């Protein structure tokens, strides 16, 4: 059934034009940051076509010399640790929630969703007061604990959804063969739920990596994460746009390979999570 009338072709062309326009909307800001990161401070406020030859690596050099790389490392350490902690504790919990015969699962599912949706400002106020007394302000442990309030409910909730898609018969068959429940989880269920596990791990890492608010409140100079450290280049008197552009790229680059590699799993898992 091929429609070749003019009206159809015009509509099709309009469709493609719209898609191209939105492709531009998505991509051009990214192109702009890359250009910005390579422009010298002297040429910043003139249009690119007026000084097309003005390029520099100074912005990259000045970022490399600043505290920013250390902040990136802090982000890796805290987001990574919190994700590992959440997986370690959350995966067996989610497995039990999914396969155990219990009546009041609705309350657990509501509670987990609620914790995932609760405003961070609610967590941060009491944490801040306790941290000041306990000496946890500006420590890795303090930040990792705070991130776990985000990552753990997320991991339990999304792994619960993934385990629900694994047939109970698989667990029962393993038990019939005489394996313990822990062994069944480790040897049979986790490998079968790998897409969900990858997605939960990646998204939980991103949740912590993206955080700005917790880090802003409970870190100072030693454990500042990269998203907060970027703000050092914004001061009341002036804004170092070149440095900000480089820092924004440095913040995004580690995420790109993760998203590309895990894209398929993430889509499956998000689709499953939204559909229930």
């Amino acid at each position, binding site marked *: *059934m091929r429609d070749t009338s003019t009206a159809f072709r015009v509509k099709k062309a309009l469709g493609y034009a719209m*898609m191209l326009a939105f492709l531009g909307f*998505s991509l051009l800001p990214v192109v702009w940051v890359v250009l910005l990161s390579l422009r010298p401070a002297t040429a910043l406020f003139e249009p690119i076509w007026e000084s097309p030859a003005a390029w520099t690596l100074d912005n990259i050099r000045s970022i490399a010399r600043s505290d920013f790389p250390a902040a990136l490392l802090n982000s890796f350490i805290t987001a990574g640790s919190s994700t590992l902690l959440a997986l370690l504790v959350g995966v067996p919990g989610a497995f039990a929630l999914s396969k155990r015969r219990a009546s009041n699962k609705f309350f657990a599912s509501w509670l987990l969703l609620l914790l995932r949706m609760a405003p961070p400002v*609610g967590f941060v*106020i009491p944490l801040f007061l306790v941290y000041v007394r306990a000496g946890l302000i500006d420590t890795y442990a303090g930040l990792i604990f705070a991130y776990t309030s985000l990552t753990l409910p997320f991991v339990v909730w999304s792994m619960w959804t993934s385990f629900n898609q694994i047939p109970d018969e698989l667990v029962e068959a393993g038990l019939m063969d005489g394996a313990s*429940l822990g062994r069944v989880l480790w040897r049979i269920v986790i490998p079968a739920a790998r897409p969900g596990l990858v997605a939960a791990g990646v998204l939980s890492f991103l949740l912590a990596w993206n955080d700005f608010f917790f880090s802003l409140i409970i870190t100072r100079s030693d454990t500042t994460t990269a998203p907060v450290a970027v703000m050092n280049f914004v001061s009341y008197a002036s804004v170092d746009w070149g440095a900000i552009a480089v820092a924004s790229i440095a913040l995004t680059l580690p995420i790109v390979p993760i998203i590309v590699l895990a894209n398929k799993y993430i889509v499956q898992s998000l689709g499953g999570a939204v559909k229930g």
Partner: protein
Amino acid sequence: MTPPRASAAMDRTYRRMLWPASLAVGIFAIAPLLGMLALSFTDFHLVRGWSGKIGIHNFLRLFEDRRFVSSIYIMMALSAFGVLAQVVLGTAIAVGLDKIVGKWRVARGIFVVPFAVPHVAVALIWLSLFTPTLSPINAVFAVFGIEVPALLTTQTGAITAIVIADTWATYPFVMLIVLAALQGISPDLDEAAALDGATRVKAFFRITLPLLYPTLLMVALFRFIETLKHFPLIFVMTSGGPGRATQATNYYAYVQTFQNSNVAYGASIAVFLFLFAAAISFYIAKANARLSDA
């Protein structure tokens, strides 16, 4: 079926698997929230401390506080326009991409790129694009003699700017989910509609859209919750300004707590937001339970 002899021992193992998670959720997540609730009934101040007063005075104050009431309007504007733009755009692009097969499928990957950009970077990128002296948008229009208005200096403009930045970063999320849902809809349905003489547009609104509705509703609710929590975009792009024009409720809680040191009052604002999240998550959990029973 599970053999009955195993069930008691197995239940014990299940509970052993459950308790570390329960304990951790209790300590890291529930305890702080209870702390927030407790604080909201006190008059705790970051500098002055607590006078021993307990009561509902903070909640009474909320509804006389004009800044709080206007923060709700601002929050609602940011959420309503943001979610609408993200869902419409995400669905439109997903429907377009769904039709594209072959080597152009790479386009999917390109559309997802902004989703990878951390929120602070999103805010800074759009701040640069909305800074008239710096922005290439202004430079391009200036060539044609058109002066682009400075968005961030008016309330409507600043809210629009935040909505644009938020939409740029999050419509790929909607797109990915709708794309996954579209893949579950049989193309036979479209063909059947075409055979019945329905136009493509009609077929979309009569057949595809109703089938997508549950997915769209869930996505919209998720996005709605996220938009209530806007922080980096406001902090970086407008600092709540011009004046207090973009102080959404979540940001206002931050201002009261950490700038004005009114910890108890800030906590009561957080409790208000929390009740919002509780209502919506209750609805989603109910819908999920219905779906998994069916």
